């Protein structure tokens, strides 16, 4: 608060009952963000910050945003969230799974502040959750992978064996197999979201096993660099990773949080904000497929885009039966689709994946 603001607020004190509501009308809505990485990580956090900027561009003077970057998951998150709430932010976005308990604790202390938690599952009166259906994008790039592999071996670098990642592996494999029945998938777990050297080693290990298409659910560009060295191809993850175009990066899955941020801030401005659980996909524009480069034959590109359109319109669900689990037991009957509950707890591979899934 500068001196002039202080004088104004002191002058307004006697008339506070009358003046305060009038002031509140003209003051911008304060919106806070906490990020798990730096805004320049080129992946996950970068995309969240792009969405924040898009939201500011949409509402202009009506909003005022603050962000805190590189907030570790855990006790520090609670401090950062409290700081944002005390600074007068009325809506706070917490953009990583590990902030879940911190969000719940701080939300209980500030009942008039609304919280939005990305990829979590705990909600309250003033806590909403939001997530993206990344597996829809995986279906599209899985199709490209199945068509593009010459060795019939595709590789997948997983971060942690959690449902979100398992959905991605299953979806990629199902759609690669659909266009190429001989395809085999090899899975390597890096046990990290971000460790460039290890991701590079994982990619090299897959390539040495004869893999020529690499999919990744880790955040660095190291696997693409390795793929380039070996003449293999790969896909951008979370962000476009456009500087590896036209090859090895032949397409990408992009997280686009902008429509959601615009919608939710709009709801705050209208006073219609409610605690919700949103899980949006390609159809809502939250999951995007990056440009498919000319390294992919035109008919494959068309096929992938057609699948993307079918998913977007809701005509096709990436997990549609008949599908069995890897242990041979039946999962989905012909034409049956997976429910959101099944997907959000997915802890098995589908039939055909021989890799082990750590439990």
């Amino acid at each position, binding site marked *: 608060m500068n001196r002039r603001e202080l004088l104004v607020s002191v002058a307004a004190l006697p008339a506070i009952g009358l003046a305060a509501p009038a002031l509140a009308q003209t003051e911008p809505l304060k919106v806070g963000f906490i990020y798990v990485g730096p805004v320049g990580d080129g992946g996950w956090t970068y995309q969240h910050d792009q969405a924040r900027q898009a939201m500011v561009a949409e509402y202009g003077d009506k909003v005022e945003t603050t962000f805190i970057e590189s907030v570790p998951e855990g006790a520090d998150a609670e401090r950062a969230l409290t700081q944002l709430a005390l600074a007068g932010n009325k809506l706070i976005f917490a953009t990583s799974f590990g902030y879940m308990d911190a969000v719940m604790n701080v939300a209980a202390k500030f009942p008039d502040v609304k919280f939005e938690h990305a990829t979590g599952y705990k909600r309250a009166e003033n806590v909403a959750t939001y997530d993206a259906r990344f597996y829809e994008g995986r279906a599209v790039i899985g199709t490209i992978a199945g068509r593009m592999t010459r060795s019939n071996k595709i590789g997948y670098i997983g971060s942690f064996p959690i449902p979100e990642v398992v959905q991605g592996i299953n979806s990629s494999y199902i759609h690669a197999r659909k266009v190429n029945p001989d395809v085999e998938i*090899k899975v390597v777990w890096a046990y990290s979201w971000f460790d460039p050297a290890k991701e590079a*080693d994982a990619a090299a290990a897959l390539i040495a096993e004869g893999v020529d298409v690499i999919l990744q659910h880790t955040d660095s*560009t190291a696997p693409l660099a390795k793929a380039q060295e070996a003449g293999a191809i790969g896909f951008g993850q979370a962000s476009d990773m456009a500087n590896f175009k036209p090859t090895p990066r032949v397409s990408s899955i992009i997280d686009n949080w902008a429509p959601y941020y615009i919608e939710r801030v709009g709801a705050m401005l209208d006073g219609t904000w409610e605690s919700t659980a949103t899980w949006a996909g390609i159809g809502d524009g939250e999951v995007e497929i990056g440009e498919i480069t000319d390294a992919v034959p035109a008919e494959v590109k068309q096929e992938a885009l057609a699948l993307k359109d079918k998913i977007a319109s809701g005509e096709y669900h990436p997990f549609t039966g008949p599908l069995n689990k890897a242990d041979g037991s039946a999962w989905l009957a012909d034409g049956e689709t997976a429910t959101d509950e099944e997907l959000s707890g997915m802890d098995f591979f589908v039939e055909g994946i021989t890799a082990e899934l750590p439990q």
Partner: protein
Amino acid sequence: MIDPLSVFLLLLAAATPILFAALGELVVERAGVLNLGVEGMMITGALAGFAAAYVTGSPFAGFLAAALAGAAIAMLFAALTQILLANQVASGLALTLFGLGLAALFGKPLEGIKAPAMMPGPLRINWIVWLGLVMVPLVWWFLNRSRTGLILRGVGENHDAAHALGYPVHAIRIAAIGFGGAMAGVGGAFISIATVLQWTEGMTAGAGWIALAIVVFSNWTAPGVLAGAWLFGGVTVLQLRLQAAGIRVPVQLLSMAPYLATIIVLVLISARQKYSRRAGRAAPGSLGQNFHALR
């Protein structure tokens, strides 16, 4: 089923960053200085090397710049601990935090840029991998067969005695710290220039700490550092290969294998020291202690 040669080739590359950093730290520790700032020096080298490689278009210029930058930031540690006689552990930790922060700050404009590709050296193995392999006998020879190396070890074993003999303890330690910084810088640059080909904040991801552990593991010898780096790199690569090959070994077991192997070897080394008559060499006598002539 898994071709050992291909595992070995992957291992060579995976071990290179920690091999450089650990060889540098070996010389520093043999001079009696404990520099916990390896991670900070590596990330500085990774950034400076990447920037220079991008600007000049030459990866080799990048590695040279990385060595200079690593040595330069190490001089900060040298000034703190050798001139101002600050605590080495605290100064080293500060160097790591400072290096990580500084690199993140200056790295902002370089995000999203790709490094120039590197021509592979003989046998399609990266030149810097070769250089790392050559450095092992060189460092061994320097420490064990050269006069300067003997003096450096003397300073590390007993700085009071070395001082009494007229050797410039601080000057020798500052030179060793500079060498350690240069080596860590090259190790870090190997990650940004040869492995990832991009600058990303925090990209060394703890390699500096592994290098520090390997120096202890090596029992403060150059061949031991090579063995440690290969063991660590080898188990890492092998566990990823086993996973990729779809061999059904519990993944958690494979992931902890490098650390498990380290613990086992450390136990074997200390057992050998305890029961063998020819006791193995332990840590340098003056390791981590500051020297002041007027004490």
